[in-house]
């Protein structure tokens, strides 16, 4: 076993405590089953719980009738005068969602519609999304928020958190972005400077800001109080509801408290944006699926990905349509939900080390930034 595999297994062991697993009714679709067989035939070790061989589907257990929903996020729109590249990919995703047949029951837009919180960007997003005529639900991303602290975003897209019951599933939309610790007042930053720091994924000034917050945790507790413990819960959030990689805010700081609230529920799925990559994990009883961006893919963080996650293939940086896309989630009558990454390329997952976004990084050691450090003790969490 190489070092990276060892690290992934250790991560899995530490994060996934004894006896805590999602509901056992894990649905395996024919497609996944076939792929598992093929992998076994190729002599790759996939026999353990920790190596879940996925092509572009993630199978989840539910107890409801069949329906579909779609996810689009991280469009990172600039004003058209600056850049139309991300407009083009967002428009393509929107057209494809609208063309779904049978149609999706709803579209969830998972945040980072704009790049720098500019009302021009947020209004452009609303204009593009007009093409989708099915029900639309929204949660914010940090790029939408920190120019005017969410004023323009809430005006256009409404308030979070929210809860919605749909065909036997309780869907919850969380706001994991608006409760960043105040790093701007003491430094007398302008709104633009504040937004600028929030918009740099690997910046040190805003720190590991993502969080649910005490008030929203209390809300979540109340929102689930009347929900049967064995019925499905799906949480939408911009940031993942577990600790993946804090320096890039691939986490929420209070994920443990979130899991305390979710602990009694046997069928919980978190669908999240922000990571711009194929990602899957199980923590406690919660499944977590990372969504693609329509704008650009993020690399996997330096410590690698959880053992349960497939790794997306390396993409062509010269092709704006590569490595990006949206998700089509289908709840089947066999109590399973397929998550299909619509990545606009044939192979979404890269198995061979030279084609895999994980295997490519075996030699890689990375450091946090130097040039933007304004706080003492920066790097303590790395």
């Amino acid at each position, binding site marked *: 076993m190489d070092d990276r595999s060892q690290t992934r297994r250790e991560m899995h062991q530490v994060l996934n405590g004894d006896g805590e697993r999602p509901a056992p009714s894990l649905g395996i679709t024919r497609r996944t089953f076939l792929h598992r067989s093929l992998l076994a035939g190729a002599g790759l070790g996939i026999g353990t719980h920790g190596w879940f061989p996925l092509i572009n589907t993630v199978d989840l257990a539910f107890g409801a009738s069949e329906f579909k929903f779609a996810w689009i996020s991280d469009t990172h729109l600039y004003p058209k005068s600056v850049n139309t590249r991300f407009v083009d990919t967002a428009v393509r995703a929107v057209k494809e969602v609208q063309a779904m047949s049978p149609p999706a029951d709803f579209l969830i837009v998972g945040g980072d519609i704009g790049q720098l919180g500019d009302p021009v960007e947020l209004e452009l997003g609303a204009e593009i999304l007009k093409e989708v005529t099915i029900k639309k639900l929204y949660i914010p991303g940090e790029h939408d928020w920190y120019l005017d602290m969410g004023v323009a975003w809430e005006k256009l897209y409404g308030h979070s958190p929210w809860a919605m019951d749909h065909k036997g599933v309780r869907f919850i939309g969380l706001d994991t972005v608006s409760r960043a610790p105040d790093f701007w007042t003491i430094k007398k930053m302008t709104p633009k400077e504040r937004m600028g720091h929030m918009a*740099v994924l*690997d910046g040190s000034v805003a720190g590991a800001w993502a969080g649910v917050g005490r008030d929203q945790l209390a809300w979540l507790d109340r929102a689930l109080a009347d929900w049967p413990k064995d019925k499905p819960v799906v949480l939408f959030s911009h940031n993942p509801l577990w600790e993946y990689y804090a320096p890039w805010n691939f986490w929420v700081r209070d994920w443990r408290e979130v899991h305390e609230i979710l602990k009694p529920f046997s069928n919980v799925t978190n669908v999240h944006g922000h990571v711009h990559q194929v990602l899957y994990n199980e923590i406690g009883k919660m499944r977590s699926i990372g969504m693609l961006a329509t704008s*650009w893919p993020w*690399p996997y963080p330096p410590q690698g990905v959880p053992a349960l996650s497939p790794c997306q293939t390396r993409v062509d940086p010269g092709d704006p349509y590569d490595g990006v896309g949206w998700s089509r989630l289908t709840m089947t009558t066999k109590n399973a939900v397929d998550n299909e990454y619509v990545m606009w390329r044939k192979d979404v997952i890269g198995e061979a080390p030279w084609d895999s976004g994980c295997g490519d990084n075996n030699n890689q*050691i990375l450091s946090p930034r130097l040039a933007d450090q304004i706080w003492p003790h920066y790097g303590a969490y790395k």
Partner: protein
Amino acid sequence: MRMTRRAALAVAIVGLLVMLGAGPNGALAHREKHTPAQLKAFEELFLEQVKIGDLLFHGDEATQKRMGVTLSKSGMSCAMCHPFVADVHPYEFPKFQEQMNQVATLRDIVNWCIEKPNDGVKLDLDSDAMRALEAYMLWSTRGSKVDPGRH
């Protein structure tokens, strides 16, 4: 490139130290043992370049303006796809780059990224900005295994 005051001071100190330690022939200063003060000054000079490269890599407008370079016209920066310089693998160059159809150096691929995804103006290969970018990328990935040619 106009040097910052700090960098200029560091250069002056290094020059002074070299002269003091050089004996009759200044050009052969490296034959003398280095002092801790010299090493510290060398490192400061290097990290100054790293910081400039870091700012350029993250699209800092003031630094680009000061150095007279345009790394992007699309609003994108290098760091948007490469946080902490992830997935750049500067220690693997030179290597064959499909999109360029040639064995490329790190500086070649930096220019490709500036011109293509970033829609910027490519740098002179020997420019101060390129040197600073190279310093930052290699510093940020220090400790990685050098493996030229690896795909």
